[in-house]
């Protein structure tokens, strides 16, 4: 294990041990948070019981739906905009400011418009994710060197062939970055919305457990969400790094 890994394990391990010590020692009382070992046990119990599997499945289903919609639409829009300078320049201020806007503030509006179902949550996830995909796609397409396009023309490749054999492979790392961002945002959008107001799903269950002082359910769920998002992010990040390293870009 190299030094960096050792350091990371040390920090995480140290943090968990500190929590354990503070909880067991009474500095953090039981109502606020159970000790880490207790959370771990509850975690296992919760998943063996299968009580919450439907909620987890529902949330993840919506996350995937949100993600797929945002990813496909984002790449399509990004590709179109790249070809139309005027439209792109007009939308540029929107993209630059987009992530400063509290998209969640639109959630109440969506509930009023679409009712309290899956719609508003998927829509929030979609809206959060799509602009990241558009911007990353534009970035990738911008970076295709002119010399590669010229090479394709000399080899007499038509537009579709150029896209498949040259542009797409070149942009692959950016498409991966876009997927990573879209997944993270879709996840935040859906779970966050469920949390604020929903009838089911993981986010809702956490809120419900909180109001019922059910730490035995709440903390394992929070832990699950942390683990899921870290795993998804690290997995895609790792893949992204490998792709970029092969290009000599990192």
């Amino acid at each position, binding site marked *: 294990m190299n*030094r*960096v890994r050792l*350091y*990371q394990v040390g*920090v*995480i391990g140290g943090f968990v041990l500190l929590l354990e010590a503070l909880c067991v020692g009474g500095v953090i009382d039981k*109502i*606020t*948070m159970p000790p880490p070992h207790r959370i771990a046990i509850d975690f296992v119990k919760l998943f063996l019981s299968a009580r919450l599997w439907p909620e987890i499945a529902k949330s993840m289903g919506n996350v995937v739906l949100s993600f797929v919609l945002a990813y496909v639409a984002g790449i399509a829009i990004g590709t179109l905009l790249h070809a139309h300078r*005027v439209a792109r*320049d*007009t*939308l*540029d*201020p*929107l993209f*630059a*400011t987009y*992530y*400063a*806007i*509290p998209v*969640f*503030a*639109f*959630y*109440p*509006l969506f*509930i*009023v*418009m679409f009712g309290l179902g899956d719609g508003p949550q998927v829509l929030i996830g979609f809206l959060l994710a799509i602009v990241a995909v558009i911007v990353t796609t534009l970035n990738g397409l911008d970076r295709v060197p002119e010399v590669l396009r010229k090479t394709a023309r000399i080899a007499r490749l038509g537009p579709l062939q150029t896209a498949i054999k040259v542009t797409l492979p070149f942009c692959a790392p950016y498409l991966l970055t876009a997927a990573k961002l879209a997944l*993270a945002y879709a*996840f*935040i959008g859906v*779970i*966050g919305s469920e*949390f*604020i*107001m929903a009838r089911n799903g993981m*986010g809702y269950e*956490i*809120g419900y*457990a*909180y109001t019922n002082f059910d730490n035995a359910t*709440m903390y394992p*769920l*929070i832990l699950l*969400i*942390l683990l899921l*998002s*870290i795993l998804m*992010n*690290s997995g895609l*990040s790792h893949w992204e790094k490998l792709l970029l390293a092969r290009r000599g870009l990192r």
Partner: protein
Amino acid sequence: MRGARTPARNTLVLIAGIFVLWELAYLAVGDVALRSPLQTLRFTGGLLQSDYFWPHLANTMQAFGIALAIALTVGLAIGFALGLHRLSAEAMEPMLVALYSIPKITLYPILLLTFGLGMSAKVAFGAIHGIIPVALFTLSAVRGIRPILLKTGRVLKLSPSAMVRTILFPAAVPEIFTGIRVGFSLTLIGTVLGEMFAAQHGLGYLLMNAIGLYNIDVIMSVTFLLVVFASAVNGVLLAIDRRLHFRA
């Protein structure tokens, strides 16, 4: 293609386009779920003159201000400390990035349990949203200072404090400022988000409360105000950001 598509003109065209789409959506959906741009502007005017709105606005701004101050000081401190030490930077950066991507709203119950309902929980929530981008950008800025600039400082025999003041800091400022800009926006989002769940005061509370009362005017007005405020400030910070980067 001449005709100077300046950023200002683009922004105006964009804003006009958004208002047009908004009006069209209203005409399609109707009063049951939306208000027209004109109605919203009028209502917002009324809201800003009413007595009951300002305390909520003040509450949000107060929480936001404190959260921002915390996010900036702690984020800058962490970013500098890690950035200056190579092993720490390399080890902690991926961990900070992982923290960045988790839905922080799921941590909110923990904050509520720790701080209780009220201002402190909101401030803590806003702060945790802002700390990470500030720290990450600062870390990257400090790490990314071109070694040739530091070498030049050594050759010119600068003392360590002069090195920090006259080379390290100015070289890192553009990227640190980007972190501050992102931190600003995210802290605002975090504060309002915190108010949308389990709060009794503030703009986020007004939003959620309005759902229960089916008060579409309030929903549209408060959303409108938040969007305008967030975009306007971000626009200004972005302009400063671009100037700093142009010089660098």
